């Protein structure tokens, strides 16, 4: 049973990590709490559904197009709704909530509330210690690790990464040094939304596409980010796996209370915050910055 718990936990955690990294990135750099983050993930899922089922496009191509399209939508939304009010954090929060609900309603109008699906990139399963794991799940796990490595490399090894980190450290000084802070924030937004769309492309074949599919991941993603320390990528990654494992523990140890897995995960988050209000890696991240 321990093997089952560990494997299930790692798979669940990867899904949350994929979502949380993008959210954490835009918060860490631009101080934007983008509640619409998982709504972009939902829109990407619908784009893939439409391309594969209505237009007959190959799933891989559909995913690439969806990621590009959703990133573009994200940038337009940023320019129109977020950038003009960026100085007011509460207003940004409310604007992104409105944005998420608007996207939900648009999808509801176009596709109705029917439950839809997108094809898996790889079908079949693998047995590890007698535990069956779908190839698509393994792909999610691998992609989560790759994405983290990619984001780390972007931040540490590129000029853009240097600009992003400088801006995150001190916006005014970065401006004085000649960096276009607004453009850096916009590019970070593009990367963040692109990551949400990528998560949609990888995760959704395991799940169901519907207009409200962004809500549950949003709660879990927020829990992950708060648990790990707001703005800390490392924290988000570790937090995601902690909550993933907690969910698995609930399913295996209290099967009658499997529906409580989300609540238990959130309770763990609260418990950690009571002991360490800045989250697991909050302080470490401040030092990193």
């Amino acid at each position: 049973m321990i093997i089952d718990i560990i494997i299930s936990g790692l798979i669940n955690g990867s899904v949350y990590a994929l979502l949380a990294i993008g959210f954490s990135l835009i918060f860490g750099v631009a101080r934007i709490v983008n509640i619409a983050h998982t709504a972009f993930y939902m829109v990407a899922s619908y784009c893939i559904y439409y391309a594969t089922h209505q237009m007959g496009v190959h799933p891989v191509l559909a995913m690439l197009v969806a990621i590009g399209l959703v990133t573009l939508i994200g940038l337009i939304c940023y320019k129109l709704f977020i950038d003009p009010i960026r100085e007011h954090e509460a207003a940004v929060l409310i604007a992104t909530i409105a944005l998420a609900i608007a996207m939900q309603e648009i999808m509801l109008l176009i596709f109705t509330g029917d439950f839809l699906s997108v094809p898996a990139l790889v079908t079949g399963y693998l047995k590890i210690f007698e535990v069956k794991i779908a190839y698509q799940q393994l792909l999610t796990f691998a992609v989560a690790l790759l994405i983290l490595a990619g984001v780390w490399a972007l931040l540490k090894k590129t000029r853009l990464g240097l600009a992003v980190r400088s801006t995150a450290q001190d916006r005014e000084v970065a401006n004085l040094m000649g960096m276009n802070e607004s453009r850096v924030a916009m590019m970070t937004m593009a990367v963040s939304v692109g990551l949400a769309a990528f998560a949609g492309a990888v995760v959704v074949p395991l799940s169901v596409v519907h207009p409200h599919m962004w809500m549950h991941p949003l709660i879990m993603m927020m829990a992950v980010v708060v648990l790990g320390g707001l703005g800390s990528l490392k924290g988000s990654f570790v937090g995601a796996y902690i909550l993933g494992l907690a969910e698995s523990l609930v399913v295996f140890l209290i099967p009658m209370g499997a529906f409580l897995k989300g609540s238990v995960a959130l309770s763990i988050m609260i418990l950690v915050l009571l002991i360490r209000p800045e989250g697991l890696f909050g302080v470490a991240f401040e030092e990193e910055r």
Partner: protein
Amino acid sequence: MKRFGFVLGVLLAVCLVMTIGSPAWGAKVIKIGVIGPMKFVQGKGHWNGATLAAEEINAKGGIQVGKKKMKIELVKADSNEFLSMTDATNAMELAITRHKVDFLVGGFRTEAVLAMQDIAMDYKKIFIGCGAAHPKLCTRVAQNYDRYKYWFRGTPFNSMYLARTCFIHMATVGAILKKMLNIPKVKVAIVAEKAMWVDPMVAAAKGFIPKMGMEVAGIWRPSAVATDVTAELSAIQRAGAHMIFTTFSSSVGITFARQAGELKIPAAQVGINVEAQKDGFWDATEGMGNYVMTMNTYARGVEYNELTAPFVDKYIKKFAEVPTYTADTYAAIIYTLAPTIEEAGTLDADKLVAVLENRECMVPSGKIRYTKDTEGRHLHDLKWGPGYLTSLGTQWQDGKLKGVWPNRWKASKDAPEITYKGIVPYKIAPWIIDKYKK
């Protein structure tokens, strides 16, 4: 001049009273509120069934109410009950007070229907439920008849009978597994979404499975909107279950079927999976829902009686899909409400209740008769059993939803065998055969 003003005032007052207070049968049409989650498949079923009924009735000139014919006008009320209880109660209030509906059909989620039922009862409007299964909706009638007598169950039969039918399906499939795969004692995993209508079924299943000579392998209660159940599936497989008794009415039904199919979990799925009742299930699971069995109301080519095929064919022709049980708003209007109004010759709710509660009529899914409780009090619940309503057992077989039960079913030892027209044999999934065949 003063006198003229007074007369004018009285005339205006009379006009106002006549406009607002005149009874519905003073109007030219009968307004039927169709309430349900209209952006979702359940609400679409409500609306489609009602539309078909209204078109048929209106094509014949309407319903005979006393000496005049009255046409039907449908009022669409979006309850949005999956997401908001407040939306549901507002929709009901709006349908009654603003649109002045005479009758109501629909409702899906028990938690919302209980609240909507109270509003309909406040206004003494006949409300035929076409979706919620909890027995409480009808026990309220027995406990407080004067208030709740305007409620009638239209479909499905209550969750205790749903459970009973599922147990028969389970016993049937259990016997097939035992015989074909030489399994000495079949182990059953109970997997039920967390929802109110499921609670009595889980309790009943837990007690009843051992009585059927099977063993409970465990009980899992995922969220109704869970997006990942692989942990549950791992645990079920670890528990050695040969069969999974499912009770799903929401999206988790697709997630569960798809992931179980993807992982080739060697356990036969039997029970209720509302999503598996729909034509879209095959695509929604990307074909991974093969061999899933679910209780159902209609399937292509399966007939309960002479009314089934005309209704199903007409529905498929108009809406390009097989009706699900919420489309029984059709039967609620055309076979229940309309003949009752014609028999009573009035739209007066109290007089209609007296006629309706004693009616017995054929509908496309069997025969309807309203029941009483053990103390002889009216429940306005539906009679279950051979000759009345039994529902179907349907199974996805290579992209097609086939009727597999009742197949030579005997309700009791001495009862005659029942097999509906169009029923085919149940199929065991090949990966289950591979796992257990010795």
